[in-house]
């Protein structure tokens, strides 16, 4: 079985400050990890993924995430937050070699960036 936990329902940061959105996961084998962003009344948009290789992955809009196998975490980060980053962020996981559609999502973290 696979699962994802996003321990914070809400993260508030000031514009220009660094941001972190936390994610921990559980899978039986090796994980494929993803971050998606959702704007109000819209579908999910892909930000970045970890499949294998370098633990630090870079994605869209200046976001990056660090895979930590020992802590089973995949936290989303950005060095300098923008007001336009305010949205709902989802972490997702699936086990290596499983079908792409069978992803498990966390319950989301609402990021609010204040001017």
């Amino acid at each position, binding site marked *: 079985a696979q699962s994802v936990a996003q321990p914070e329902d809400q993260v508030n940061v000031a514009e220009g400050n660094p941001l972190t959105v936390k994610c921990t996961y559980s899978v039986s084998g090796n994980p494929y990890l993803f971050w*998606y962003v959702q704007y109000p009344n*819209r579908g999910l*948009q892909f930000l970045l993924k970890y499949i294998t290789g370098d633990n630090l992955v870079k994605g869209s809009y200046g976001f990056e995430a660090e895979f930590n196998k020992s802590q089973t975490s995949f936290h989303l980060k950005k060095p300098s937050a923008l007001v336009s980053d305010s949205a709902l962020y989802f972490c997702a996981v699936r086990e290596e070699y*499983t079908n*792409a*559609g*069978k992803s*498990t999502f*966390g319950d989301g973290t609402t990021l609010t960036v204040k001017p």
Partner: protein
Amino acid sequence: DAGVTQSPTHLIKTRGQHVTLRCSPISGHKSVSWYQQVLGQGPQFIFQYYEKEERGRGNFPDRFSARQFPNYSSELNVNALLLGDSALYLCASSPRGRNTGELFFGEGSRLTVL
């Protein structure tokens, strides 16, 4: 290039009715998945179809069914609607059944059951 398209975008039904939601994947994508997103929660996996065959099913009752057509478009059907079926239904496509890539989501169909 067109992304994943879903229809209808919004619909209102009453308890006991039936609903059909439609999805067209990105051109060239052969895998379609359906997710239910209840307000305040993350998307929950309902079905995956690849090459017109069901490749996975989440923990949903038999009232939920789906199919994929030869052109890789898909329908999600829900019978005997309950108030708890009110949600955003998301369709996602990917190039193949098993790959290392991300899912491409449509904008969703917002179902309200009264």
